[in-house]
């Protein structure tokens, strides 16, 4: 899974996951005549400009009509096309939620909802543009698959997997450039999590580009004699329950990591499953019930407790709980 020099952060290539989407959708456009792209006045930001230029007949500029865009996509899907509708998560699917809920999800329309800008790491645009509730919202909707990649390489794979899957999918990409640390040839499957690094003391389950922060934390923790297992969890729904049960049984403590509200997010999904099937102590790294603000993404990750430093803190906390838990 991991490339060989993954722990040499300064030497890694950096690219945004939205760029992975942009490359993959262009490739899909060449392969499949049913694939079309809709966009709400954000072609460059959502990385569909190349698609637009290569396939003008397959590209539909919807302007700032996100509600209309979701419905048009639904109508196209019900007529046999595979529409990818692209915007920022705050505008779509949050801004057009009732259309997404009824006409895409309830209809089981084969629409792919793409957000290029998700999480507090969107950065300088500030709180209005930082979608940190989208996972909670989308995973509560029946029929909806929710995917988010950890790096550029995985972004390409989830785009291709979404195109092959028949049904509504929410694809959560990120704006900022982050390290590429997974191998091109490793596979992605909807409903599967991957163990990136083995460890016996604690399982850190992360999604999105923060997976890399979790890996950095694990590296540092080894120096303290703490061996953390790192799990990349790109398929938030459906959840890889077997894998999560397996790692919970092995490490008996979990820390979840996501650039999203703690309430309702990926960590909530894990906690809900674990509490029913194999209760162990869990700590959560995520946004703690507040809005974001302007700043660059690294500053924001530090200020809002999403970076490797805070992940380590949460690991130490969960290990204390684990000790008490095991003594009972």
């Amino acid at each position, binding site marked *: 899974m991991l490339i060989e020099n993954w722990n040499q952060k300064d030497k890694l290539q950096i690219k945004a996951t939205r760029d992975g989407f942009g490359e993959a959708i262009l490739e899909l456009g060449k392969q499949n005549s049913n694939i079309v792209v809709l966009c709400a006045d954000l072609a460059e930001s959502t990385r569909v400009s190349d698609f637009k230029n290569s396939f003008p007949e397959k590209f539909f500029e919807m302007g700032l009509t996100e509600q*209309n865009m979701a419905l048009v996509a639904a109508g196209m899907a019900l007529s046999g096309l595979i529409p990818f509708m692209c915007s920022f998560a705050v505008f779509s699917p949050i801004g057009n939620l009732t259309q997404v809920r009824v006409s895409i999800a309830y209809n089981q329309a084969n629409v792919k909802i793409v957000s290029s800008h998700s999480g507090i790491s969107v950065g300088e645009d500030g709180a209005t543009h930082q979608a940190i509730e989208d996972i909670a919202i989308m995973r509560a909707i029946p029929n909806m698959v929710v995917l988010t990649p950890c790096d550029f390489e995985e972004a390409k794979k989830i785009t291709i997997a979404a195109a092959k899957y028949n049904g509504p999918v929410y694809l959560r990409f990120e704006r900022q450039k982050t390290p590429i640390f997974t191998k091109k040839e490793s596979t992605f499957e909807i409903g599967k999590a991957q163990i990136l690094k083995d460890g016996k003391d604690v399982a850190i389950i992360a999604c999105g580009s923060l997976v890399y922060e979790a890996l950095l934390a694990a590296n540092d923790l080894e120096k303290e004699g703490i061996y953390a297992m790192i799990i990349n969890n790109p398929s938030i729904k459906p959840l890889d329950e077997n894998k999560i049960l397996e790692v919970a049984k092995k490490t008996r403590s979990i820390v979840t990591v996501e650039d999203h509200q703690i309430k309702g997010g990926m960590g909530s999904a894990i906690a809900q499953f674990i509490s029913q099937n194999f209760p162990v102590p869990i700590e959560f790294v995520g946004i703690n019930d507040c809005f974001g603000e302007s700043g660059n993404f690294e500053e924001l990750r530090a200020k809002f407790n999403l970076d490797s430093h805070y992940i380590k803190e949460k690991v130490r906390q969960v290990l204390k709980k684990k000790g008490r838990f095991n003594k009972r």
Partner: protein
Amino acid sequence: MDFLHLKKIANQIRQDIIKMITEAGSGHPGGSLSCVEILVSLYFGDILKYDPQNPHWEERDRFILSKAHGAPALYAVLSQAGFFSHNELLTLRKINSRLQGHPDRIKFPYVETSGGALGQGLSIGIGMALAALYQKKDWQVFVLMSDGEQEEGSTMEGMLCAVKYKLNNLIGIIDANRLQIDGSVDEIMDGETIKKRYLAFGWEVIEVNGHNFSELLDAFKKAKNIQKPVCIFANTIKGKGVSFMENKVQWHGKAPTTKEAKIALEELKEEAKKYAN
């Protein structure tokens, strides 16, 4: 009398609507009764291409009931057209029924889309019309909306989009019965300027009496050949055909009692005598 055959069907549909909603104990009689002639024109006036033996026939025209609370009228028409059994109509809104209060295309595959949230049908129709043009298909798309639904922002987004893409295969129909839940469309927001809005956005508008088959059929035939989006603005009467329901907003979303239903059905059967031949 002209269009006897269609009038006879419309009368039968109205009786079905009353029976279904009464049996269900809830539903929307007013807006179901107001759109009967529109639906009968489409399905029995040689306007829509469809095949009840092959409901997903690729070349069929697409009909979308955007005012999905009019579902009882559509169910009755689809049954009459031979898509499914007449007996099933009385399962409307009951547990385990295919006939949901608002149509569900997964449970009931004879509708093109699930619906129930107003303001969504027009743009779904735009998506289908764009797909037809992209796939070089000849089928056309018909979307039946309410006049209250014109208040939805998403409807106005669709009005813009249809014109941008010069959709010559999209026909919007407005069942303008002039009443919505909280009162008259004019009082609630603005029913007066609906036609002007469509014209201003660049649509062709054809105004008809929505209970007159001659006007409806002429409008549909004309609309099919107009090379831009067409809005057929059909002036209708909410609760049409049942005297005590006509133009009464309280019949928007209330089932008649058994006694009231009996009166309504007697009235409709009396009317039916005119078409017996």
